[in-house]
């Protein structure tokens, strides 16, 4: 079953893991929606998040902030937030903020699924 909010597709892959496909942009316009959607998942017991950035052309600091919030929420519960198929614009932001130390990256969603299983 897939749930779609404005720009995100959320696909459950295990009892405590989901893949969130970030759409074309995660920025100040939809960061609050992302935050709400992710929080809903955390409330329902999800701990591991694979964020699929294959189509993402824009990630601004507000968007990145909403991912940080998610990380802060799940990391004390041994949860993980990992990035899959990171596009170039997303890579630039991740490099600039040095957050690759916190978010593991995988070339594909499949690779990420294997790793967090």
């Amino acid at each position, binding site marked *: 079953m897939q749930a779609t909010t*404005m720009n995100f597709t959320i696909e459950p892959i295990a009892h405590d893991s989901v893949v969130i496909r970030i759409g074309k942009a995660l920025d*100040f316009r939809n960061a609050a929606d992302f935050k709400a959607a992710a929080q809903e998942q955390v409330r329902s017991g999800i701990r591991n998040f694979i964020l699929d950035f294959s189509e993402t052309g824009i990630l*601004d*600091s*507000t968007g*990145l*902030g909403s991912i*940080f*919030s998610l*990380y*802060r929420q799940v990391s004390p519960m041994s949860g993980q937030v990992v990035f899959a198929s990171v596009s170039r*614009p997303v890579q*630039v932001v991740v490099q*600039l*903020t*040095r*957050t690759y*130390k*916190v978010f593991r990256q995988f070339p594909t969603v499949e690779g990420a699924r294997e790793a967090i299983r």
Partner: protein
Amino acid sequence: MSQHSILIVEDEHTLRRLLEYRLGKQYNVRTAANGEEALELIAQELPKLIISDIMMPKMDGFALQAALQEDNSTRAIPFIFLTAKADEASRLKGRRTGVDDYITKPFDIDQLMSRVDRLLERTALFQTQLDAKIGQDFSQKLMPKKMPSADGYKAFFHSAPREHGGGDIFDCSEPRPGVHFITIGDVMGKGLQAKFYAFSFLGYIRSTLHTLLGTTSSPAELMTRVNQVLVDDPPLEDTFASLLLIKWEPARNLVTYANAGHCRPVLMTARGAEVVPYSDMILGLDAGAEFKDTSIVLQPGSSLISYTDGLLEQVMKNGEQLGEEGILGYVNHAAGKPDPIQSLLKNVLSDSENSRFGDDVLMFWLEREGNRDRPSRDPAPRWFSPFSEGAQT
């Protein structure tokens, strides 16, 4: 996709459903069958506008409206009376303080819709104007009163916050004679909230600086402390910020910085512009994050340039963001100009997709003047690795 929520209070089932259906296409609608139910719903969440019938069982529209007038949190909610009472007496009674409109049944639904739109537009406009005013006030308070200065140096600064910009911060102080601290940062988020956090955050950085300076003057140690607070302090939870802390000792021509995920500064020397590469993780994410100092000796004629991401993300004519590489090119052109920042920004703008900057732009340019009698013969920048003893000052 509107966040505007409208409350409809109407005892007649068919009319209630009709209004719910029509308004529901554009707004978030809740309904109540009488004043009492309405008050319950309002207590749960304040609506942006109320449309209410007058004649209803239990609690009528007048009683509801009077109750709302008594509470400061509800008295300003736009209120429209909708009623079959066309007679002049009730019309007058309906037109009292706090009632914005009075529509008699039978009514034209399109006319009602346009009145609702207009009322909501007007309240939104008030809000925007108020936000802009407060935001401007914050922006002004966040900006420095005076620039750092020293013999043989020139400092340039530019800040142009946008109405809906974010939380850029800049601060400079000289806590000990000859030792300057320059702070450039960006609190994540947009609008008034980001500005408010930036304002409180800057106050925190200042006090940390002054408290810790007795024991250390290492930007990295200050950064570690600021990060711990962002991670541990409940009021600042969910606040993330990039920060560049620069210690400048003009007598030694020495700059020592720690960079927490902020746009990397540019060093302009006789060799040309280059990115000063070393940086650590952004603040607020990881309590255990470590920060390192890097030192640079500023040779005569060289400059250190720092900025915030509004410049980096400016969209150019080719549809791409300016980026670090792009900035290096413009720095090369601007170096040596009487006001290098203005010259750089002018050139960036003329090559941009739009004629304005899309976001806040903040820039600080510190230039060591060249030797007047003999031109600089030392083109290579000298780095101290953050990992070597040499970085300690």
